[in-house]
């Protein structure tokens, strides 16, 4: 079965690369943790809400928002950055020679990235909870599916930006802007009209309910879960469509191997 063989190969490659770039992997997480510390310290000094409990609940929201944001950044940027790097280093065309099609190679990369980023980001979550003293409910049976549903939209954005990178090459500035757009999406309150149709928003709210209120996934409103899945799938489909269109343009213009 070639699909499984490709998935296995991508897992082995990414594991090898993670070990070879261990300093980079660790320093990325440390940087994210440092940013969280700064935000936490800022919130404390501005309002002192942690001590008074006046804004009880915001701290949990910040931790969850930061936790989902980190997953989101990993999810979207790994695909988009990897495509840029592979084109730059010259391996992209070789990946395009896979008989299963490049999209499966890209999908395998996403799956592998999720698996390999899961443990470090969970450690980051533990560090954030220890730092703030706010211990959230971490029920993996609910959390993992909700994370995957939430990240569908981010994967869609990753495919779209990856496709644009194939054609326009130097669009790293757009990648960075997207990180802030994701922050914006994660702080939009659910009461904003049509908020649940935006990527990440409803999924983030469901994760908050699971982690703060301790609601198991199967006790969450099925309508909300189905909406989150449909919205995520729609953004993913749009992202894949944009990627396919860009891929076609890149092949027409002979840009696949260029950088």
């Amino acid at each position, binding site marked *: *079965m*070639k699909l499984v*063989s*490709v998935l*296995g*190969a991508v897992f*082995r*490659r990414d594991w*090898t*690369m993670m070990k*070879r*770039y261990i300093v980079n992997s660790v320093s990325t997480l440390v940087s994210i943790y440092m940013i969280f510390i700064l935000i936490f310290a800022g919130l404390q000094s501005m309002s002192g809400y942690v001590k008074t409990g006046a804004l009880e609940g915001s701290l949990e929201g910040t931790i969850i928002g930061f936790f989902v944001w980190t997953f989101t950044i990993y999810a979207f940027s790994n695909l988009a950055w990897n495509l840029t790097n592979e084109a730059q*280093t*010259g*391996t992209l*065309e*070789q*990946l*395009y*020679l*896979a*008989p*299963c*099609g*490049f999209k499966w*190679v890209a999908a395998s990369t996403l799956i592998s990235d999720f698996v390999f980023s899961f443990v470090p980001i969970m450690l980051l979550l533990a560090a954030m909870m220890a730092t703030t003293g706010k211990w959230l409910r971490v029920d993996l049976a609910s959390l993992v599916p909700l994370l995957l549903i939430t990240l569908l939209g981010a994967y869609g954005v990753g495919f779209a930006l990856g496709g644009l990178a194939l054609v326009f090459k130097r669009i790293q500035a757009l990648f960075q802007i997207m990180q802030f757009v994701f922050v914006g999406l994660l702080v939009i309150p659910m009461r904003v009209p049509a908020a649940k149709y935006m990527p990440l928003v409803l999924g983030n709210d469901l994760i908050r309910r699971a982690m703060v209120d301790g609601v198991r996934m199967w006790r969450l409103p099925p309508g909300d879960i189905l909406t989150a899945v449909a919205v995520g799938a729609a953004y993913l489909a749009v992202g894949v469509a944009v990627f396919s269109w860009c891929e*076609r343009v890149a*092949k*027409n*213009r*002979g840009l*696949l*191997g260029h950088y």
Partner: protein
Amino acid sequence: MSMSAGALQVQSLTKVFRDRGGVAVRAVDDVCFEVKRGEVLGLLGPNGAGKTTSIKCILGLMRPDSGRITLFGQDIQAAYPRILGKMSAVLEGSRNLYWRMSVWENVAFFSALHGVGSREDREYFGYLLKLFSLDEKRHTEVRKLSQGMKQKASVVCALARRTPLVFLDEPTLGLDVETSLELRSVLKRLAREEERTFVVSSHDMDVIQDVCTRVVIMSSGRIVVDDQVSHLMSLFRTRAYRIRLRGPAPQALEERLTQEFASVRVTDAETDAEIRVALSEDGDIYRLMDALRGEDAVIDEISHEEVDLEKVYLEIVRGERMRS
């Protein structure tokens, strides 16, 4: 799949690029050629001739404007991307590898993309690494290898996929003479032992002459020659002449010859002059003699020039440029 089908058939392949002003450049213009199973075909041409574009169109990395490509009897467009299981390629040499992974890790990864990784396959990887003298470096990260070793590792990655058709675009680029000879010897051996089909694109004429049985020469996006290497060489052997004159060449002779023959070279030594020329038509020898007589040149000796593929190639490409 038809058993009588060749390995590769390219029919009327055309690829046009447009610059920002909308000006069209025909990078590949109505190209047709065929490669038989087990054949080693050389693809030659100056920079910008359309070799790499043709290869990338066949591999599906570029979309041609028109044309039909058939691989082992199957239409590539209809069978894409599954058809990629039948071909592999070295496209940018050492850039085709992950430099932070070892040689073995690269070979195993790119082969696994083709579903190749069984125990028998891994034994074959080991065989290839031995053949290319990379066995001792199998666990070394690619970035720590010399340029020649990186290039060889890249070729191993393409061969390890065990595809019946392999494209090698500039496989000897940046290699020293010894490594180039080693690579040529291994390619010949694999073509003979495994009956695989190779398409080798290179500027290194020694490689093409040594490894390939047939050459396709491209210029400005078109095929100008498609012939057996041996036939091409014998053809040019009978057309290439060296004429030694007694005394220096008369003043107007070089100008006159240059006007009449595209490939003439006149070298004036202190005492004798020498003319090297490749004649393209049967009657040209008489025109040459008339020109020499007309300029009062005294012929001391006429002989067939020793030719190699590089000279043949240069004659063809220069002649093509003159015509266009």
